[in-house]
C-alpha cells in the first residue's frame, strides 16, 4: 500500500504533467494541476510517515530503486508543499499557455521527487537530467523572446557539463565493484571511490549553482517568477545540496571530498553573498543569495552535519520561495524588478510587504526566525572542524544580513516627493504591470512566511535532536547558546548598518564575477571556432580527398583506356596486319597454272626426301 503510494507520488505528476504539456487543455489546466499537486502533497506526507521503498530492474547491474528514509522524509513533503503553493500562485500569475506551464511544472516536480527518493545512481541521473530539461523549457517559457530561450540554454548546458560527473561516477561505481546503489558507493575500491566522489561532487556543485558554476542561475532569472520560486529555491538548486547530504558517507570515506565540499560551500556562501549585496535587481539579488545559502547546505554535507544541512535546506526553501513569489507578485503588478523601482512597495501592498519582511529577516538570520537556527547548526559543525572555515561562514552569515537588509530598506523606504519620478521611470520596464496583487498570489505567501518563521525548530533542541538521531548522527555538535546569541547580534548589527547607509555596488558583483564572460571567452568561443574549423576541414580536406580519389581513379582509367587503345589493341591490330601480310604472301603461289603446281609439288617432295635423309 505504502509502496503504491510512493509510485503514485512520483508517477502522478509526471503523467498528468506530460499530458497537460502536450494537450492544449487551457481551461481545465489549472484545476487539474492544483488537484494533482494537492494529491501529491498528501501522498508525500503519507510516504514520509510510512517510509516505503520500491525497486524494479532497469539495466543490468542497476535497478531503478526509490525509497523514503529519514532524510527524504523531511525533504519530499517540503518539495511537494512548496510545489503546491507555487502552483496556486501561478494560477493567478500565469495567464497564457497555462496547460504548457502547469504541465512542465508538474513534470519538473515529479523529477524532483524521484531525485529526492532515488536510491541508485541510475534513478538519480534519470531524474536529475529531466529536472534540467524541464528547467530549460520553463526558463525559456516565453519563447518568443530569444534571450529567455538563450538563458534556458545556458542553464541546461552549464548544469549538464556538471552532470557529466554523474555519468563518470556511474562508470567508476561499476568498475569499483560495489554497484550503483547510492548507499553502497562508499564501499567501492579505493581509487574508483575517489572518481565516484569527484563526479558526484562536481554534479552537485553544478546543480546547486556553487562556484564556479553560479552564473547560470543569474541567467535563469529570465524565466517566470514562479519558476524561480520553485526551481531556483526549493527544488532544483536545492537538489544539488541535497545530493551531497545524501552521499555524505561517500564524501567522508574519501578523506578529501568532504573538506573540498565544505570549502566550496563556504567560498560560495561568502563570495556570492558579496555578489548579492551588490545587485540592483531584486531577482538577481535573490538568485545570488540562493547560491550563497545553498553554500551553507553544501558546507553541512562536507562537515557531516546532515541534520543541520537538511534543516537549512528546508527552511531556506520556504524562505526563498516566499521572497521569489513576492518579487514575482510585484513584477506582475508594477512591471519591474529593479530595486530602485520597488522602493516603498511594501507600503502599498502591506500583506505582501510584511510577508517579505518575515522572509528577509529569516534570511538575515534574525532570531528566532528559521534560517538563524539552521545556519548556526551548520556553523557549529564548522567551528568543530576548523576555525578559518567557521570565520568564513560567519562572514557569509553577516553578508546574508546585509543583502536581506538591502531588500528591507528598499521595500519599506518612504520615497520623497523629489525622487518619485525617478522611481516611476522604472515601472513597466519589463512588462506591462497590472497594478494588482490577487488573492491567489497572496495566500501562498502567508503560508510560506509561517514556514520561514518557524522552521528553525528543525535545528533547535527537541526536534533537531530527534532529526539528528533519525539521520543516524551519533554525536551531533549543537550550537551553543553563546554562538547563537553572537550570530543573532551580528545579524541585527548588520541590519542596523544597512538601514544607516547603503553599500557600494561594484561592477564585479553586478556581473557575478564575470564568470559567464570568462566561460564565453575561454570555452564557448574556442569550441565554436574549433567546430567551424573542423567543419571546413571535413568539407575541404576529407571530402575533397574522397572526390580527388575518385577523380584520380577516372584519370587512371583514362590512361588505361589510352594504353588499351594504343598498346593492347595496337598489338592486336599489328598481329592481324602481319597475318594479313602473310596471307598475301601465301596467295602468291596460287596461280591456277597446272605446271607451276607440279613444280611446287616436286620442290616439296624434294625437300621432304632431303629432310628424311638428313634426319635419319
Amino acid at each position, binding site marked *: 500500500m505504502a509502496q503504491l503510494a510512493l509510485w503514485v507520488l512520483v508517477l502522478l505528476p509526471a503523467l498528468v504533467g506530460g499530458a497537460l504539456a502536450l494537450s492544449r487543455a487551457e481551461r481545465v489546466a489549472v484545476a487539474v494541476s492544483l488537484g494533482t499537486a494537492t494529491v501529491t502533497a498528501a501522498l508525500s506526507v503519507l510516504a514520509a510517515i510510512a517510509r516505503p521503498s520500491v525497486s524494479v530492474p532497469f539495466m543490468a547491474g542497476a535497478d531503478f530503486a526509490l525509497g523514503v528514509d529519514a532524510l527524504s522524509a523531511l525533504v519530499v513533503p517540503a518539495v511537494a508543499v512548496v510545489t503546491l503553493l507555487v502552483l496556486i500562485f501561478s494560477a493567478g500569475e500565469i495567464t497564457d499557455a497555462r496547460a504548457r506551464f502547469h504541465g512542465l511544472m508538474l513534470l519538473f516536480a515529479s523529477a524532483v521527487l524521484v531525485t529526492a527518493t532515488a536510491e541508485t545512481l541510475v534513478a538519480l541521473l534519470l*531524474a536529475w537530467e529531466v529536472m534540467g530539461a524541464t528547467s530549460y523549457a520553463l526558463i525559456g517559457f516565453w519563447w518568443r523572446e530569444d534571450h529567455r530561450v538563450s538563458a534556458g540554454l545556458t542553464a541546461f548546458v552549464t548544469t549538464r557539463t556538471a552532470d*557529466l560527473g554523474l555519468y*563518470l561516477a556511474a*562508470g567508476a561505481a561499476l*568498475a569499483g565493484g560495489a554497484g550503483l546503489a547510492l548507499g553502497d558507493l562508499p564501499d567501492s575500491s579505493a581509487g574508483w571511490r575517489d572518481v565516484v566522489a569527484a563526479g558526484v561532487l562536481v554534479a552537485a556543485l553544478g546543480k546547486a549553482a556553487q562556484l564556479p558554476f553560479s552564473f547560470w542561475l543569474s541567467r535563469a532569472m529570465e524565466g517566470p517568477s514562479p519558476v524561480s520560486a520553485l526551481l531556483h529555491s526549493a527544488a532544483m538548486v536545492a537538489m544539488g545540496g541535497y545530493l551531497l547530504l545524501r552521499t555524505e558517507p561517500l564524501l567522508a570515506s574519501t578523506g578529501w571530498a568532504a573538506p573540498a565540499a565544505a570549502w566550496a560551500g563556504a567560498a560560495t556562501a561568502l563570495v556570492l553573498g558579496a555578489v548579492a549585496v551588490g545587485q540592483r535587481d531584486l531577482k538577481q539579488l535573490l538568485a545570488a543569495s540562493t547560491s550563497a545559502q545553498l553554500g551553507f547546505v553544501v558546507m553541512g554535507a562536507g562537515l557531516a552535519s546532515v541534520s543541520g544541512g537538511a534543516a537549512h535546506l528546508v527552511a531556506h526553501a520556504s524562505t526563498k520561495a516566499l521572497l521569489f513569489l513576492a518579487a514575482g507578485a510585484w513584477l506582475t503588478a508594477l512591471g519591474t524588478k529593479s530595486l530602485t523601482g520597488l522602493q516603498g512597495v511594501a507600503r502599498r501592498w502591506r500583506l505582501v510587504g510584511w510577508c517579505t519582511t518575515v522572509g528577509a529577516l529569516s534570511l538575515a538570520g534574525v532570531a528566532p526566525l528559521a534560517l538563524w537556527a539552521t545556519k548556526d547548526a551548520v556553523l557549529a559543525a564548522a567551528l568543530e572542524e576548523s576555525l578559518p572555515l567557521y570565520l568564513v561562514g560567519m562572514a557569509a552569515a553577516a553578508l546574508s544580513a546585509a543583502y536581506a537588509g538591502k531588500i528591507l530598506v528598499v521595500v519599506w523606504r518612504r520615497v520623497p516627493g523629489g525622487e518619485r519620478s525617478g522611481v516611476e521611470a522604472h515601472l513597466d520596464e519589463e512588462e506591462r504591470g497590472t497594478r494588482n496583487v490577487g488573492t491567489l498570489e497572496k495566500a501562498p505567501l502567508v503560508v510560506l512566511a509561517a514556514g520561514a518563521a518557524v522552521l528553525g525548530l528543525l535545528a533547535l533542541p527537541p526536534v533537531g535532536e530527534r532529526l539528528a538521531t533519525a539521520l543516524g548522527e551519533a554525536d551531533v555538535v549543537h550550537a551553543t547558546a553563546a554562538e547563537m546569541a553572537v550570530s543573532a547580534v551580528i545579524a541585527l548589527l548588520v541590519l542596523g548598518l544597512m538601514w544607516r547607509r547603503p553599500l557600494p555596488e561594484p561592477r564585479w558583483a553586478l556581473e557575478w564575477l564575470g564568470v559567464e564572460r570568462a566561460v564565453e571567452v575561454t570555452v564557448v568561443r574556442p569550441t565554436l571556432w*574549433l567546430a567551424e574549423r*573542423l567543419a571546413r576541414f571535413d568539407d575541404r580536406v576529407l571530402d575533397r580527398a574522397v572526390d580527388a580519389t575518385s577523380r584520380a581513379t577516372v584519370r587512371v582509367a583514362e590512361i588505361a583506356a589510352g594504353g588499351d587503345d594504343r598498346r593492347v589493341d595496337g598489338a592486336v591490330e599489328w598481329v592481324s596486319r602481319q597475318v594479313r601480310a602473310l596471307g598475301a604472301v601465301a596467295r602468291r603461289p596460287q596461280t591456277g597454272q597446272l605446271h607451276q603446281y607440279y613444280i611446287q609439288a616436286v620442290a616439296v617432295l624434294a625437300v621432304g626426301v632431303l629432310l628424311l635423309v638428313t634426319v635419319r
Partner: protein
Amino acid sequence: MLSLIVFLPLAAALVLVALPRLGDAAARWSWVTVAALDLALVVAAWLRYETPAAGRLAFEEQAEWIPGVNSSYHLGVDGLSLPLIAMTAVIFLACAVYALRETDRPRTQAALFLFLQSVSMGLFVAADLILFFVFFDLSIVGMYFVIAGWGHNDAARSAMKFFLYTFLGSLALLVGFIGLYLAADPHTFDMVELAAQAPLAGSSLAGGLVLAAILVGLAVKTPTVPFHTWLPPAHTDAPAVGSAVLAGVLLKMGTYGFVRIGMPMLPEAWRAWAWVVIAVGIVSVVYGALVALAQTNFKRMVAYTSVNHMGYIALAVGAAGLVAGDTAEARSIAVSGAVTQMVSHGLITGALFLLAGVLQDRAGTYDMDSYGGLAGPAPRLAGLFAVGAFASLGLPGLSGFVAEFQIFTGSIAAAPVTAIALVGILVTAALFLRALQRIFAGETQGRSSGFGDLRPAEMWSVGPLLLLSLIIGVLPRPLLDVIEPAADVVVELVGR
C-alpha cells in the same frame, strides 16, 4: 516464419510492379498495409521468441543454396538481430504512413521501399555470409535509386557518391568474408559455424588483415570518421523517407556487422585491435559532434550527429574487446548499450529526418537561419521536434539515455579513457538546443510565416517513433531482456 517476414514485402513489391494501372491511392495504402502486416509478423515472432542457447539462433531455417562453397540459405535471429528487425519494421511502416502524401510516382516508390525492406530484414536475419553480402549490396542498390529517383538538389551526384563509396566498402567486406571462408576448416560461409570455429585463431597477421578488411567495409557503411563524407550529401539530397531509412536502418548494417561478424568470428584479432576501434569511436564521437555544431543546414547537422551516435557504438564494442578478468559485466553492459543504441538511434533519427522533410515540404529549405519563431504557426511540429531533439541528445526518460548510459558506464569501467567521449553528449546538447532556438524561438519570421503545421500523416508517422523511444526510455526491460543474454554471449565469444 522468418522467410515470410523477409519476403512478404518483396512479393508485394513485385505485385505493385506488375500492376502499372494501379491507382496512386491504392498503391500508397497497399504499402502501408504490407508494412503493417510485416510489423505484425515481427511482433508475433517477438512474442514467441525464447532466448536460444549460446551460439544458436531462434526460428532457424536452412536450405541448400550453393553447396559447392558450403553456403546455404540460412536464417535465424537472436537478441542482437530481433530488436533490429523490429526497429526496421517500425521505421518502414512510419515511412509508409509518411509517404501517404507522396505524389511523385507513389507506386514505384512503394515497390522500391518494399524491396528495400525485404533486403534490410534479410540482412539482419541472415546466418550465412554470402546471403549477408547479397543483402548488404542490394541495400546499396535500392537506396541509390531512392536518392537518385526522389531526391532533390544535387541528388544524382550524391546518390552516385553514396553508391560508389559504400559499394567499395562492401568489396572490402567481401575480401574479408573470403578470408574467413578460406581459413575455416572445413571451408564454410555459415555464420553460426564460423562463430563457433573462430578461424584464424593463432595467426595474428592473417587474422588482423581479415579483420581490417571487414572493419573497413563496416566502417564505411556505419560510417565512422574518416569514412563518413558520403553521409551528409546523401542525407541532404535524399527524400525524407529515404533519409529515415538510410539513417535508421542502413547505417545499422555496419554496426550490426561489428557484433555479429567481427567480434564473434575474429575474437583474437578483435582483442588485438580493440584500441584502434576505441580510438575511431572516440574520434567519431567528438569530431562528429563538433562538426555538427558548426552546421547551418538542419539535415546536415543531423547527419553529423549520426556520425557521433555511431561513434558511441564503436567505442562500446571496442571497449568490449579489452578483456580483463573482472570487467566481464561492464563489457557486457557496453555491448548491450551498443545494441540499444542501434535501435534507439534508428527510432530517433528516423523521426528527426521525417520532421526535416516537413521543413523541406513547406518552405523548401533546411537552412536553420531561414526560420525563426516557427513554434507560433506550427506548435505540433515544435513539440515533436523538441521531443526528438531531447531524445537525440540523450535525455533520460527517452531511449537514447538507456543506450548511452549503458555504453558509458560499461566502457568507462572497462577503459577509463573513454570518458573523453562524454564531451560528445555535452556538445550534442548544445547543438540541438541551438537548433531548436534558431528554428522555433523568437519572433515568427522568414520562411516561418504561413508555415502549415503537421498533417495527420506526418503526426502518425513521427509520433509513434518518438512514443516508442519514450517507452524504451521508461520501461527498458522488455528490450533489454532480449538484448542482454546476446550481449553476454558476444562478450564471452570475444573473450575466448
